C-alpha cells in the first residue's frame, strides 16, 4: 500500500471515529 493510501485510510478512519466518539459522548455523557 502506498503512503498516500495509508494517508487516506487514516484520515477517513480518524474523521469518522472522532465524529462518532464526539456524538456518543454528547448523547450518552454526563447529565444524559
Amino acid at each position, binding site marked *: *500500500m*502506498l503512503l*498516500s*493510501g*495509508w*494517508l*487516506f*485510510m487514516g*484520515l*477517513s*478512519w480518524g*474523521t*469518522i*471515529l472522532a*465524529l*462518532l466518539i464526539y*456524538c*456518543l459522548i*454528547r*448523547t*450518552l455523557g454526563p447529565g*444524559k
Partner: protein
Amino acid sequence: MAREKWASTIGVIMAVAGSAIGLGNFLRFPGQVAQNGGGAFMIPYFVSLLLLGLPLMWIEWTIGRFGGGFGHSTAPGMFHSMWEKNRFIKYFGVIGIFGPIVIYLYYVYIESWLLGYSLFALTGRYNACATSEGMVAFLHGYQGIVHNEYFSGLGTAYLFYAVTFVLNGLVLFYGIHGGIERVCKYGVPVLLLLAIILVVRVFLLGTPDAAQPENNVISGLGYIWNPDWSALKSSRVWLAAAGQVFFTLSCGIGVILTYASYLNKNDDVALSGLTAAAANEFAEVILGGSLVIPAAFAFFGADAMASIAKGGVFNLGFVTMPLVLQKLAFGNLFGFAWFFLLFIAGITSSISLGQPAVAFLMDEFNLSRRRAVLIFMAVTFVLTQPAIFFLGRGVVDELDFWGGSFFLVVFATIETILFAWVFGMDRAWTELHAGSDITIPRFYRFIIKYVTPLFLLCILGFWLVEDWLPVMLLKGVSGADLPFVLSTRLGLVLLFLVLMILVRQSWKRRKMRGEYAA
C-alpha cells in the same frame, strides 16, 4: 389511542442506525471505492456527506418529529401539516409509504437467504463448493433458478422466507418500544461486534500463501485506498460517491420520517441525526472497507480482484466471502458470523421498511396495531410471491429500480424543497434546533436552502438521462422477460393508485370529523 413513543434517545438512534446499516455498507461500499479511484473516492464521498447526507438526515428527522406532533407518522400527513393550503401535497407523500413497501417486497426475501446461509455455514452445507462456479451453482440452486445436486426446488428457500417473514411481522406487532427499539438496541451492537471480530480475523490473515507474497491483506487495503487522482476529474465518480452516501443513509425512503415521528416535541433531532449518520459511517468505511476486498485480495490476488469487484454485491457476499472464510480454521464459525451479521443488518432495516405502512393504517384509519400488522403481512405476503417465483425474470430488478432508486431521489428532492422553501428556512431552522443538544453551524442554512436541493436536482437529471431512461423504456429486457417486467410495473402503478385512494378516503373521514378545514 395513545401515541407510541421511544423509550430512550439511544433507542431511536440505534433504530435509525439499524435502518441505515445494511448490505450496502459491507458489500456495496468497498466495491464502489475500489472501482472509483480508491482513496481519492473519499474526497467526493465526504463532500457528499457534508452537502447531501447530513442535511437530508436533519431534514427528515425534523419533518418526522414535526409531523408526529400532529399525530402523523407518515409523509402524506406530514407534508399536509407543513403546507396546509395545498390540497395535493399529501399525494406526493404517498411515495413515503409506497417506496418502503416496494423495497420490503424483495428485501425480506433476500434477508431470508442470509438466515439460510447462516445455518448452511454452521452445518458446512456449502463446504463442498471449492470454486466460484460451485458457489454460484449453490446459490442458483437455492434460489430455484436451476435444479442441481445442491437443491431440487424452492422448498428450502421458501421455508427460510416464511421464518424471516414471520419474524419481521412479530417485531412490528410488538410495536415501537417493545419490538423495533428492543431489537435494534441489542441487534446493532451485536452486528457491529460480529463485524469487528471478522475485521480482526481478516487483518490477522497476513500473507495466506507464502508462495505468493504479493497476495496479502496490506496490498488488499491498498487496492481500496491507494488514490487514483485522475478519478476526481470524472463526473461519474462524483455521482457514484453522491449515490453511495445517499443510499447508505436510508434517506428518501420515508422510514426516518416515521421513526422520528415517535419523538417528543422537544427531543433532540440535530445530535441524534448526526450520531445515527456517524454510526452508519463507522460500519461502512471502517468495518465494510476492511472486510470483503482485503480478504478476497489476500486469497485470490490482484488479477482476480477486477472481476470480483465488478461482480456485484451478491457475488461478493454469497460467493467470494464464503469461499474465503471456509479456507480459515473455524471457517464454519466465521462463515456463520458473516451471514448472521448481514442477517441482523437486514432485519433492522426491513422492520423500518414495514413500519410506515403499519403506522399509516393505524394513524389514518384508527386501526389497532394488531390489525394493521395483519393487513400489512397479508398484502406483502401475496405481493412478494412474484419476487420469489420469478426471481430470474427481472421482477426484483424492476422493484428495486422504482422502490430502491428512482422514487428515493424524487422523494428526497420533494421533501428538501418543501422543507427549505415552502415551510421556510426560518421556521425550519427553529424547528430543527428545538430541544437540540448541539448547534448546527449557520452556514448549513445556506447549504440546506440552496446546495442540497441543487445537488439533488443535478443527480436526478443526470441519472434520469444517463441511467434511468433506458430502464424506463425497457431497453435490454429480453422478450421472454418482458411480460414479467411489465406485469410488475402494472402492479406497482396499481399499488400507488390504491395508496392514493386510501389517502383520499382518510382525508375525507378527517374532514367529516371536522379535523381539517380543507
